[in-house]
């Protein structure tokens, strides 16, 4: 994944800093609460939401079950429509392919549509190294790029910034990248949007190469779909001469008809709209309209490893709507950066450790970045049982076991940090296998109850917990003895 996230501390440490930042917490609370109420209203408008959700889930599961066939079919239909298909096993290969394609055009700058896949592989940094400047054109991506910042939300990467901060970033940084911010720019959202329009217009009009992702790829027709709001997507998809789309292999749907489900559930789940302002679909190239050359780069980068996990593979159903982020109590307080990945929030907590493996500190901690309240599952338009996968991944971190990495089966060692927990569980297993030992222990505890301290302060990491909690009082008689005495003789 993106180099910008290398060396991230574990989630608890990163989140600790975030929750102590009152501006960040205020910004996140305001934004997530605004969208929550709107989403509920947009979903309530369609009486068959449950059926659409179930159909979305089934279409995606079916696609994943036959992913090899659909990939081959997609390749054929894109090629037949005049597109050129490339395959990239990992981020490095995808970056290399795109860099070479851009170099072959002779251009040294590209305009980009917001795309999670290119964020994931760190494409901008790779292009920069090759002397190619990538301009982000989505408003939130622009804010992140100008602010030399990292994205913190799937849909609105600059959700952690309020209007005042955005104004300051525009005023300070726009001149470095092109047209400066207008004189006397205020912090009203309409003026900020206008500033972005003016700043980017020149770049769109002269652009020769556009880079995008895609929300969906239709196997039977070879059609790609980009769902957006601002029109920057349309600019990048239609004005340049060359279009390069980098898309994760799980973005396939089998048929044109399948779009009827997702074009209803995605806008309502993400921006809480009946329909987003602009949706573009294209199939290969069209004579005299739009790019003359179209390249599709199909990206694996950990997706097939995720597919190999029977429980975890459901994460590949994700359509990146970000509804789970907006309802998550942990995300609302910790913010997106704490997740150490371009995929934050509940979906990030199950996607990043599967795409990247659980060997780094941050990835091993992500399955724990949740209270398992289940709100994410409730709102998910493709019914990903995120709590189920979180628990599954916790098990993997603690117990280790067989996983697939880069196509190979490897055995993970149990995590080191959980030695005390494992020792406690081993002791419990020993005791519960010996009823006599349990009985003797309970009787001893009951007889010595007057000597027990009210609290038992532990040393080390258990201190904070044990210092503020009373020990549970032990009854005068163990339950099993009481039962024997009162009921057992009745039989």
């Amino acid at each position, binding site marked *: 994944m993106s180099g910008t996230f290398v060396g991230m501390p574990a989630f608890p440490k990163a989140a600790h800093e975030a929750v102590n930042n009152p501006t960040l917490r205020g910004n996140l609370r305001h934004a997530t609460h605004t969208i929550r109420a709107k989403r509920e209203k947009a979903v309530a408008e369609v009486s068959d939401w449950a059926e659409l959700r*179930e159909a979305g889930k089934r279409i995606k599961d079916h696609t994943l079950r036959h992913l090899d066939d659909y990939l081959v079919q997609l390749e054929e239909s894109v090629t037949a429509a005049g597109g050129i298909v490339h395959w990239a096993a990992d981020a490095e290969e995808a970056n290399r392919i795109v860099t070479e394609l851009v170099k072959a055009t002779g251009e040294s700058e590209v305009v980009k549509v917001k795309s999670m896949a290119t964020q994931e592989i760190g494409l901008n940094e790779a292009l920069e190294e090759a002397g190619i400047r990538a301009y982000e054109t989505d408003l939130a991506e622009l804010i992140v790029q100008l602010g030399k910042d990292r994205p913190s939300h799937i849909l609105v990467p600059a959700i952690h910034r309020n209007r005042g901060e955005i104004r300051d970033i525009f005023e300070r940084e726009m001149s470095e990248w092109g047209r400066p911010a207008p004189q006397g720019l205020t912090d009203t959202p309409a003026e900020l949007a206008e500033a972005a329009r003016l700043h980017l217009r020149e770049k769109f009009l002269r652009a020769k190469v556009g880079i995008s992702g895609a929300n969906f790829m239709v196997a039977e027709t070879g059609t790609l779909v980009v769902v957006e709001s601002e029109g920057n997507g349309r600019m990048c998809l239609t004005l340049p001469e060359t279009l390069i789309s980098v898309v994760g292999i799980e973005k396939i749907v089998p048929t044109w008809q399948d779009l009827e489900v997702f074009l209803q559930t995605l806008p309502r789940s993400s921006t809480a709209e009946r329909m987003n*302002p602009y949706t573009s679909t294209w199939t290969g190239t069209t004579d005299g309209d739009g790019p003359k050359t179209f390249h599709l780069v199909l990206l694996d980068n950990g997706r097939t490893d995720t597919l190999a996990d029977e429980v975890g593979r459901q994460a590949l159903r994700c359509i990146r709507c970000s509804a789970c982020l907006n309802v998550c109590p942990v995300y609302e307080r910790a913010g997106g950066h704490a997740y150490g990945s371009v995929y934050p929030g509940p979906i990030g907590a199950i996607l990043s450790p599967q795409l990247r493996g659980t060997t780094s500190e941050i990835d091993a901690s992500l399955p724990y970045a949740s209270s398992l309240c289940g709100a994410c599952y409730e709102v998910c338009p493709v019914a990903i049982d995120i709590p189920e996968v979180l628990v599954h991944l916790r098990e993997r971190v603690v117990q280790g076991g067989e996983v697939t990495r880069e196509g190979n089966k490897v055995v993970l060692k149990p995590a080191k940090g959980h030695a005390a927990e494992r020792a406690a569980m081993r002791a419990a297993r020993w005791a519960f296998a010996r009823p006599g030992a349990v009985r003797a222990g309970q009787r001893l505890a009951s007889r010595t109850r007057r000597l027990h301290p009210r609290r038992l302060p532990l040393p080390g990491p258990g201190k904070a917990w044990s210092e503020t909690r009373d020990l549970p009082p032990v009854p005068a008689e163990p339950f099993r003895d009481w039962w024997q005495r009162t009921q057992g003789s009745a039989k």
Partner: protein
Amino acid sequence: MSSRERILGRVRRALADAPGENTPIERTYLREHGDRSVEETTELLAENLADYRAIVHRCSPDDLAVTLAGMLAARGAKTVLVPPGLDPAWLADADAEQVPDRPESTPHELDRIDSVVTACAVAVAETGTIVLDCGPDQGRRRITLVPDHHICVVRVPDQVVGSVPQALERLDPLRPLTWISGPSATSDIELDRVEGVHGPRALEVVLVGAQPGAEANPPQEVPSA
């Protein structure tokens, strides 16, 4: 081994122990939400277009030229882009200079044009969406993108469908499609919707057809095509 073979191999190994399934996807969701007459569907389209800040006009076919001329004049448009297959009668009364949609026009040239007038392929009532499929009366995708003012003419009730599933049935996936729901907008500042970013900031939709109440008899229920 090529990356293509590597990825396909990984997919096949990953699915080796997955249970086989060949059951068709059950589509128990609705084809359309609610039961509406043709006129009610058009009403809903007008309502939802307006809800997302498109300006909606209604007129009869005989009044279309006057209506379009009035809209262009009200906007102060001096130049208007015209797709090759647009009915010349539509702009017969307009004062604005007509610029044809040509392959050799540069984006910079398009950026200097005030308005664009197009037809559409289909309109979706439930979502307030117009869909362009680059037909001869709609032109290249870029002409409805670069100018700041887009006027789209929808023939009602023929071009109006109720729902997204019905729209997809009518559309040809091999044509490049643009689905438009209101003017360009963003939710990127504090997750609140603001209109007007890169696409046209003004979207006006003309619903052209026999006007309700203009006939002696109430409009008949006509099954949509």
